[in-house]
């Protein structure tokens, strides 16, 4: 039989209370658990500059017919096939601190692109050094172009102005020059900037006032004398120019002069000065010219040795030696001059009386009669018989001063001895020597030696008929034809006394031509014949004569009379 075990029920304290779960917070990830790795969007800011709008479709003045100029005659017209090989870029000057102004010039196209395109047409391509000169002038508000005479300061200035006008960068400009050169500038403007309207300030007081104050013509040309006379008009605050150009700037080297005072008083944004003298060798003159170019650039009492540093960025001077490789062997230019008032009065009277007399001769008239009148008028173009005034002499003196300052030598030709004697008196300070029929043959070799070797002898005054084959004047760089000869071959022979094959240095020939006179008319006929000669030479051969024919001579005047055989 199994025994029953007693059961004892005990309570377990662990079970006396109900089960409750314990909750403890467990941090697995710190909020927020998505991190940004950086900005995904990109931003850009833009800076910008707008520039003046260039002139579109500039018009050529209808009164000017572009003609082949006689001023610059490089041996060959530059031919550009395809893209320009060199690029002349504008560079902002050192004193241009505003970024927009610097960008304006940096972003201009190369000059070669502008000149080879259709907007700016030229009769000839400038030489590389002339491109550099234009690029020097264009961005500058203060500039002194001091190239040696004959290197084309006029042309460089005109093209720089033209590009500034075309680019919309300037609207008004004033050119100041010596009185004898006004016509020359006018002619050069028509040659190099036929699309740029200009007017010459002159006439009576009312006319000048209207031109100064009212006229909207973009370019005005005035001579120093009229400018000085119109000082009060110029000082008017309504008269302002974007550019003022001074030709022959050494005119204002005397700061106390009225001329300098008036010039410096012109209200302007840019000041350009042109001179052929080696200005860097003349500190005093340099300082005075800079009173116009940039008054504040040279502080008072600046030591001379500091001048180059202060002015270097504003001055550009090249000599023939510097640009030898660019230059042709021979450069011929015509200097068109206006007769002085006294000369003009004498000329008009002589021509009028002369033509009346010729017409009165009827069929008995001969070429010789006409020659006599031509000769008389040509002499008046040289010197006024009553007063001795001479526009040519004035200009020649200025040109030869530059030649002498540059240490160079020049020959001056005339077909008569008397003008040479007058010139000798007036050019004595330049060591002028005479070489013509009145000089005994025995003295001539020594005279030529003196001209060659004496550094103070800068000028040789020579007649066309003098000299012989073998006359060697290759050390001469400048030739001036005070009056011209009939036959171009005779002129060439004269010129070639300086310019010969083997001549290492280029020769600059200046032919004086008085405006609106018989010289002008003869020059036109001869030029047409030269062109015809050049064309015929390419085709058939040379024409029989290059001089003036009988008909040419009679056509120079309004003469109805003709010799009997011509009339038949």
């Amino acid at each position, binding site marked *: 039989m199994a025994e029953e075990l007693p059961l004892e029920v005990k309570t377990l304290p662990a079970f006396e209370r109900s089960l409750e779960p314990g909750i403890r917070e467990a941090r697995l990830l710190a909020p927020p658990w998505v991190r940004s790795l950086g900005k995904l969007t990109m931003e850009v800011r*833009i800076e*910008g500059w707008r520039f003046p709008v260039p002139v579109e479709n500039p018009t050529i003045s209808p009164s000017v017919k572009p003609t082949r100029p006689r001023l610059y005659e490089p041996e060959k017209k530059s031919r550009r096939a395809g893209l320009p090989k060199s690029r002349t870029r504008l560079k902002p000057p050192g004193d241009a601190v505003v970024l927009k102004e610097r960008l304006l010039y940096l972003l201009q*196209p190369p000059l070669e*692109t502008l000149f080879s395109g259709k907007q700016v047409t030229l009769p000839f391509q400038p030489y590389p050094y002339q491109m550099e000169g234009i690029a020097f002038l264009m961005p500058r508000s203060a500039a002194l172009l001091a190239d040696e005479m004959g290197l084309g300061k006029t042309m460089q200035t005109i093209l720089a102005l033209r590009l500034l006008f075309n680019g919309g960068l300037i609207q008004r400009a004033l050119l100041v020059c010596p009185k004898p050169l006004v016509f020359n500038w006018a002619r050069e403007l028509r040659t190099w900037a036929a699309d740029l309207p200009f007017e010459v300030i002159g006439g009576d007081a009312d006319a000048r006032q209207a031109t100064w104050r009212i006229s909207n013509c973009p370019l005005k040309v005035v001579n120093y004398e009229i400018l000085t006379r119109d000082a009060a008009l110029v000082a008017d605050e309504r008269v302002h120019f974007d550019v003022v150009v001074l030709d022959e700037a050494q005119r204002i080297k005397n700061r106390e002069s009225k001329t300098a005072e008036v010039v410096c008083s012109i209200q302007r944004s840019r000041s350009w000065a042109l001179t052929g003298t080696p200005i860097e060798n003349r500190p005093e003159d340099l300082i005075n010219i800079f009173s116009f170019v940039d008054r504040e650039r040279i502080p008072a009492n600046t030591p001379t040795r500091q001048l180059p540093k202060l002015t270097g960025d504003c001055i550009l001077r090249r000599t023939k030696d510097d640009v030898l490789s660019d230059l042709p062997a021979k450069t011929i230019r015509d200097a068109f001059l206006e007769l002085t008032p006294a000369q003009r009065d004498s000329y008009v009277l002589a021509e009028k009386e002369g033509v009346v007399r010729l017409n009165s001769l009827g069929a008995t008239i001969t070429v010789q009669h006409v020659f006599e009148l031509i000769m008389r008028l040509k002499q008046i173009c040289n010197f006024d018989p009553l007063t001795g005034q001479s526009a040519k002499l004035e200009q020649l003196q200025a040109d030869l001063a530059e030649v002498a300052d540059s240490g160079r030598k020049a020959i001056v030709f005339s077909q008569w001895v008397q003008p040479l004697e007058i010139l000798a008196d007036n050019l004595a300070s330049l060591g002028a020597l005479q070489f013509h029929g009145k000089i005994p043959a025995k003295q001539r070799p020594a005279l030529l030696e003196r001209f060659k070797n004496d550094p103070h002898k800068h000028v040789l005054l020579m007649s066309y008929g003098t000299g012989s084959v073998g006359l060697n004047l290759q050390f001469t760089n400048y030739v001036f034809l005070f009056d011209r000869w009939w036959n171009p071959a005779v002129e060439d022979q004269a010129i070639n006394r300086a310019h010969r094959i083997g001549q290492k240095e280029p020769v600059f020939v200046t032919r004086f031509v008085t405006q609106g006179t018989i010289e002008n008319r003869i020059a036109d006929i001869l030029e047409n014949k030269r062109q015809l000669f050049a064309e015929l030479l390419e085709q058939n051969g040379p024409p029989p004569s290059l001089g003036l024919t009988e008909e040419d001579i009679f056509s120079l005047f309004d003469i109805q009379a003709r010799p009997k055989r011509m009339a038949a």
Partner: protein
Amino acid sequence: MANLATAPWNLGFLTIVQEPAGYLGGYLVTNQWGRPLEFRLSTAVLPNRVQQILYGDTLQPYICGELIGKTLIDKTVTQAHVIVTDREIVLPLRQLLATPVGWIDEREWAGVSERENVLQTHPLFPQDQRMLADLEERLGDAFDLTEPFARIREAISEARKMGVTSRG
């Protein structure tokens, strides 16, 4: 769109340069003779590492085209009738513009000896080819289409000296 045969027209030149500071854009609008009318310059854009990774291969085209190129053109007041670029990567910008875009490879241009079409257009816009061919014809041999880019780079360098191109 203006008739290129008769009316005056403007050219736009767009380039992007890549420097340590980032991508910089320059846009020059000129008249038909190459004279500057307006110039726009961007600040430098330097993508960070995340952007480089996330944008991947689309980064450069995006920065050069849409970000810099289009912004430059949109901000320019003077409208160009034709846009030329020297960066092929900018060419897709054409899809965002109504203006023909041509790419000129400077190396190809240097080797050109005869008149031929050297401007390449976007393949989706074949009609641009005709317009750009007319442009080259009109400009003639004297206008070097690569030359304005040299000006732009010089202008960028000048602006950098004056601190204009700092990162935004």
